[in-house]
């Protein structure tokens, strides 16, 4: 009986409506979490494993020494390397291909690399249009590395504290 009276009183005073509007009111004054992509972006962790890249030393020499550890560790078998001695006698790759479709961005290659050559860049803006573009060749990977070098260096510096 008392229940019924309570229900009747609530519905008569529009209590539920005002309760709901109260939440709306509160949230109206809160900070917005929606971002206007692509004009705006959410922040990305420096550990984000995005596009792959090959780095160079500051003097322009490619870091990769064709040790093939990344190829061995890759769980998706996405990496293919061919190597031979370069004219100056150093060990270098003649082919360094990553199939971006096979790649699962696990970052094992980065962990395995003894010279910090192959890295995952905290950068997710990339796409492919044509068939075959999914094969990231050595030239492409080095170009990506050159493009993002500053970003990579910064991310690695931040990450080094946790190692």
């Amino acid at each position, binding site marked *: 009986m008392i229940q019924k009276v309570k229900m009747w009183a609530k519905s008569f005073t529009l209590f539920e409506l005002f309760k709901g509007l109260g939440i709306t009111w509160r949230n109206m004054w809160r900070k917005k979490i929606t971002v206007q992509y692509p004009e705006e972006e959410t922040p990305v962790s420096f550990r984000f494993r995005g596009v792959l890249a090959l780095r160079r030393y500051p003097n322009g020499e490619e870091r990769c*020494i*064709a*040790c*093939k*550890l990344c*190829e*061995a560790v890759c769980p998706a078998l996405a990496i*293919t*390397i*061919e*190597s*031979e*001695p370069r004219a100056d006698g*150093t*060990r*270098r790759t003649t*082919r360094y291909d990553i199939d971006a479709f096979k790649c699962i961005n696990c970052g094992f290659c980065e962990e395995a690399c*003894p*010279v910090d050559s192959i890295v995952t860049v905290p950068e997710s803006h990339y796409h492919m249009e044509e068939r075959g573009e999914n094969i990231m060749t050595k030239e492409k990977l080095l170009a990506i590395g050159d493009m993002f070098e500053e970003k990579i260096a910064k991310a690695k510096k931040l990450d080094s504290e946790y190692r």
Partner: protein
Amino acid sequence: MIEFEIDGVKVKAEPGETIIQAADRAGVYIPRFCYHKKLSIAANCRMCLVEIEKAPKPTPACAFPASQDMKVFTRSPVALKAQRAVMEFLLINHPLDCPVCDQGGECELQDLSMGYGEGVSQYTERKKCVDDEDIGPLISTYMTRCIKCTRCVRFGDEIAGMPEIGAVNRGEDTEISTYVGKSVKSEVSGNIIDICPVGALTSKPYKFTARAWELKQHASIAPHDCLGSNIYIHTASNQYQKGREVKRVVPLDNEKINETWLSDRDRFSYEGLNSENRVTRPMIKQGGKWIETDWQSAMDMAYQGFAKIVEMKNPDAIGGLISPSATTEEHYLFQQLLRAIGTNNIDHRIRQIDFSDSMDSPTFPGLSINIEELEKQDTIVLIGSNIRHEQPLAGVRVRKAWKNGGKVLAINPVKRNYNFDTAKEMTVGISNMVPFLSEVVKALADKYKNKRFIEWLKDIKPSQDAIDFAEEIDKGVETAILLGADSLSHPQAGAIKSLVIAILAILQKGNYGELTTGANSAGAWLAGAVPHRLPTGENDSAGLNAQQMFSQPLDGYLLHGVEPEFDVANPQQALTALRYAPHVVVLSPFVSETMKDYANVILPIGAFSEISGSYVNVEGTTQRFRSANAPMGEARPGWKVLRVMGNFFEFEGFDYKDLEEVQMSFKEESDDDRKFERPMLYMKQDFVAHKPKGLIRIVDWPMYRVDATTRYAKSLQKTISDEERSARIHSKTVKQLKLNIPSGHMVEVIQNDESIQVKLVIDDNVPEKHVYLPAGLEETAGFGEVAGIVEVKIP
């Protein structure tokens, strides 16, 4: 027998055996770097330190002999501490560059530092650097990585007889070096790559091209000499490649044949497999032009040509030559095909010129003892054998016999550079081989008053040299007389063989051996790839042999894996006959310009890693092997091509489904387990000296020019010295010929109206009145015959 304990396990050992030997047998692993079971004990790496009960200090297990009731602990705290300390010590100066090191992944130092080392080193000082040396085109050095175990030095001293590398300087500055920057020249030098426990010595052709973990290992048999060394072929592949690529060849241990070693020829010849001269599609010549085509039309053209010859003339106008390094199955199908066509013109003895003993020859030419037993001989007589180059690992056994106090005697057309001392060495030239041997036989016959042989050789008077030589042979208890390539391709090869058998007959002791050319001469004989003998072992009416096929030109030729301009005893005659022949079908893994000149159809077949089959080695052991990778391009295994060729003729008995059926059929007809029997004594020869007027050309095949695969192996080719490519003449003969030029200048050599220009080398190791000019070289491609007459002029 001594009984003692290792880690609580009871182990037995012979008196004098070291702890590590007993432990290895018992399966207890003791870490080591300098110890190698085939080399002397150095005990300088100290990695094998173990604790022995009641011993005051840890003891090196490789140098300490086992004794009764001794208690050895390999994993006790004392031993572990010692091993860890040694490991840290070894790593003081070892660079941590495993990612760029070719040994990475299969490195003993890497493995042992994982198992026995500490994670951190107390040494923070700078590491030492050592300059690298260029020791030739086969071995690449990175001496900073060296840990001075001296295995390579000991291998050079003890096994290979190449004392070119040593440990120079002292203490911390010790370096393994040739000191004067020489390149290492040995036919077995590649083994120092295997025995090097670190990446200081690695393979140059393989350098940086693959990693150990991506290679697949296939057991196989080496295809270049009659020993049939056991090998592992390592292949790799990636998604862009069709099929697998051979990356390197390493030895597979077989105590009976190659121990743990491998000759450089067997190790590095794989480079030829990936040569650009490989033929990958069937080719036919139409209107003077070569076009690539499909198998059907190429086979049809090959068949039509032969069918026309059979129809128009007779089957005997067709002849077939097969390489002695083809598999037994290929030999068997090859002769089956030709005999089905109706001809007996089949031969594999491409370098032989004297066939007078064919009918009397045994089941197959071979060795009457096991290869293993060679090192136990106390007297080894080499007759016309440059064993170091022909069968490098048999050479290693002979050297071992010599090191064990054996005695080596030699009769050669030119003085050979052996890596053992000879008790008596006769350099007699081509012409005096038979006279000298007959004198030796006569001297022995005289000594033993053997009337039969005295009568046989009644006109011969032994010289003092021959008597001494005979005396030396007679002194031996375990004697082996080995005939090498110079005897087998001698114009009087039959006479040489009969004289050698006569020596053994007089002495009533000793072992006989023909060290044949090619990998499977024995298999070819068993399979019937000879003009006069069927696979059953019965003699048939003889067809034309390898020589006659070219001296009496035929209409149709079937060549299998042979490059006549390099491979046969008379390249000039062969090329002429082939160029005039209307129909020449070549089955070959490689194509050359010369081949395009004489052939009509070229059918691509698989090279050695790409085929399955079997080889019968010189002692008569059949060794089967499987292919390691698929034939390149559209090439097919040789046996399949021959089988389908049989189908085109619609012959019966060519419906084999697989190689096993070929082997079954061969086994039914012949018994390939037939053992070697010593040849019967035959005494029909007359012993006139082979003394033509003029300069005689001494011919052999340089080590790395013996077959097509080695000829296309680039790194091996780089090791051939200029001297080997020259005409070598004795200084006196040079004077007689009035060649007033020093070594290194060009001379013109004329043989059968053809002339070539080569460098002159004045060399007193060549007997007078001879010119030593090898075959098989680019310079002498298609040039005149073995032991022919040549003229030498200043151009």
